[in-house]
């Protein structure tokens, strides 16, 4: 019987064999003896070179999106910067990709791989843009597609943004499986992989991450060719870590060794992601700290044994911004630059607007994505949905925003403010699970690579934790 009432224990016991069958990669072959694994070996295991990835994306009408200079927004930011400050703000208009977001870059590679390996269909677990991307690319390759969404709370309410994504997936011919709030989504996902034998188009496979490398590569190459230098800063909206990882790898690949990679997430501190009550008290379904922090401190909490998205290997600085400031940035992009784009993609824009003011005026800061906008996926339905759910919308200082209680819109662009996260605290939470373990030299070297510090620093952080 299809969609049986599965038993969680049974699925967990068979988890590894189901996953192995569904990704076409033998993750065991990357494992070290101790805690770590060979990340670069895994990234090279796809059988695709960077040139292959570019060719596959070109063939799918994905990538090579415009890099736009936001002259009016730069001018606006400079009003609040000291004389001689206010970096030039650029934006990579990823909304122009097939299906409307950078996620098409990931899907192009995953779906191609599925086709090449002879799978009949693909499955992805996502309530976001990735669903539409996989559905669109599956349509193009003539494969079947199932998208599994965490969608409704127990009152039957769903974020308008998620409903829009379901509609888009259906429009591309996919089957959408909508679920209640809760981490059991993973079991449904396993059950469906098991039932259908489809390819697991995981967001976190090496295919998915390699697909984003072109994004970083395009930014670095185009800036260098047009302006004679790599950008000083690229700001990346961070959730599961794949966007940041792929972009950073692509920039490095293109030669942008000194470009700083800044992560940006919407601050949703205090809201529990698996809580039925909290689910609809947030106005962002991605790009927020509820994903950004857990995935930074434990990247392998995904639907594959080892995630290819490992943000802490690349982050130079990590900023959070409140929901109200992102809505303000969304409005700014529309009325000053004529670009109506979806709010979640503008998280990094809100951050860049503020950071540009601390940078010199001959420096470059790049906002690395935009996403499409449409019914549901727009600040007006998102704010009216929040109001209906009892969230207070008001003007004030963004620092006063309490996620789940209110949304504080800045009353002036001057008031947009950021919070910088302490990377050592994130590193310590990553290391917590090794606190009582005796580690080998190889383990320490692995952790040093994972957290982008030296082994002495790892030892010091662990020691500090024990004290």
């Amino acid at each position, binding site marked *: 019987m299809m969609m049986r009432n599965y038993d*969680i224990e049974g699925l967990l016991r068979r988890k590894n064999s189901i996953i192995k069958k569904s990704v076409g990669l033998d993750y065991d072959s990357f494992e070290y003896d101790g805690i770590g694994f060979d990340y670069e070996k895994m990234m090279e295991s796809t059988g695709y070179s960077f040139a292959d990835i570019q060719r596959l994306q070109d063939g799918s009408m994905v990538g090579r999106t415009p890099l736009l200079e936001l002259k009016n927004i730069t001018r606006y930011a400079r009003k609040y910067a000291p004389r001689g400050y206010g970096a030039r703000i650029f934006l990579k208009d990823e909304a122009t990709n097939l299906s409307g977001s950078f996620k098409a870059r990931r899907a192009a590679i995953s779906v191609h791989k599925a086709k090449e390996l002879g799978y009949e269909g693909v499955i992805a677990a996502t309530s976001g843009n990735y669903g539409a991307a996989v559905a669109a690319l599956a349509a193009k390759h003539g494969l079947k597609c199932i998208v599994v969404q965490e969608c*409704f709370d127990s009152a039957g309410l769903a974020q308008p943004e998620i409903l829009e994504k379901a509609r888009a997936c259906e429009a591309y011919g996919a089957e959408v499986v909508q679920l209640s709030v809760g*981490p059991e989504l993973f079991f449904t996902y396993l059950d469906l992989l098991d039932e259908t034998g489809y390819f697991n188009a995981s967001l976190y496979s090496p295919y998915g991450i390699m697909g984003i490398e072109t994004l970083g590569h395009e930014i670095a190459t185009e800036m260098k060719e047009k302006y004679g230098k790599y950008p000083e800063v690229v700001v990346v909206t961070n959730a599961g870590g794949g966007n940041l990882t792929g972009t950073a790898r692509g920039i490095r690949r293109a030669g942008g060794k000194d470009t700083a990679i800044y992560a940006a997430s919407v601050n949703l501190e205090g809201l529990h992601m698996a809580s039925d009550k909290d689910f609809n008290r947030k106005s962002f379904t991605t790009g927020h700290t509820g994903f950004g922090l857990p995935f930074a401190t434990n990247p392998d909490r995904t639907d594959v044994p080892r995630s290819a998205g490992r943000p802490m290997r690349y982050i130079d600085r990590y900023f959070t911004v409140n929901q109200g400031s992102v809505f303000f940035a969304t409005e700014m992009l529309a009325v000053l630059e004529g670009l109506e784009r979806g709010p979640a993609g503008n998280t990094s824009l809100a951050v860049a607007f503020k950071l540009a003011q601390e940078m010199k005026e001959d420096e470059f800061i790049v906002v690395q994505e935009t996403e499409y906008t449409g*019914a549901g996926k727009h600040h007006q339905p998102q704010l009216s949905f929040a109001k209906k759910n009892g969230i207070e919308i008001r003007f004030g200082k963004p620092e006063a925003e309490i996620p789940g209680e209110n949304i504080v819109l800045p009353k002036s*662009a*001057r008031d947009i403010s950021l919070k910088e996260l302490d990377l050592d605290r994130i590193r310590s939470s990553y290391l917590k699970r090794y606190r009582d373990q005796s580690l080998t030299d190889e383990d320490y070297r692995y952790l040093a690579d994972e957290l982008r510090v030296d082994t002495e620093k790892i030892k010091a952080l662990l020691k500090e934790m024990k004290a």
Partner: protein
Amino acid sequence: MLGEGNGSMLIKKGAYVRIRKNILPPGKRAKGIPEDTTKVPFKCWIKGRLLEEGELYEEARIQTATGRVVTGEIKEVEPRHKHSYGDHVDEILTMRETILREAWGDDDEKL
């Protein structure tokens, strides 16, 4: 697609419907999840064409877009999209006015 039959509302075979299925009852939810979530069932909603005549809120089989056959309770016939551009939000208009005034006006903090 709703038809009359023996006093109850029959839904014709082939109608496009949304079904609901309970997957886990409240007591059987995964371990370690927030308490509020453990108190509610874990459910699933899928759309497809009815494989046989059915009745609203009764169990029926559907065929989904990928061709899978799924059983569940019929929740909705010819389900409509309920999301939109939302109600007027005056705060957005106020932000717009602020942005245009600040960006194009001459109030420069350095002057």
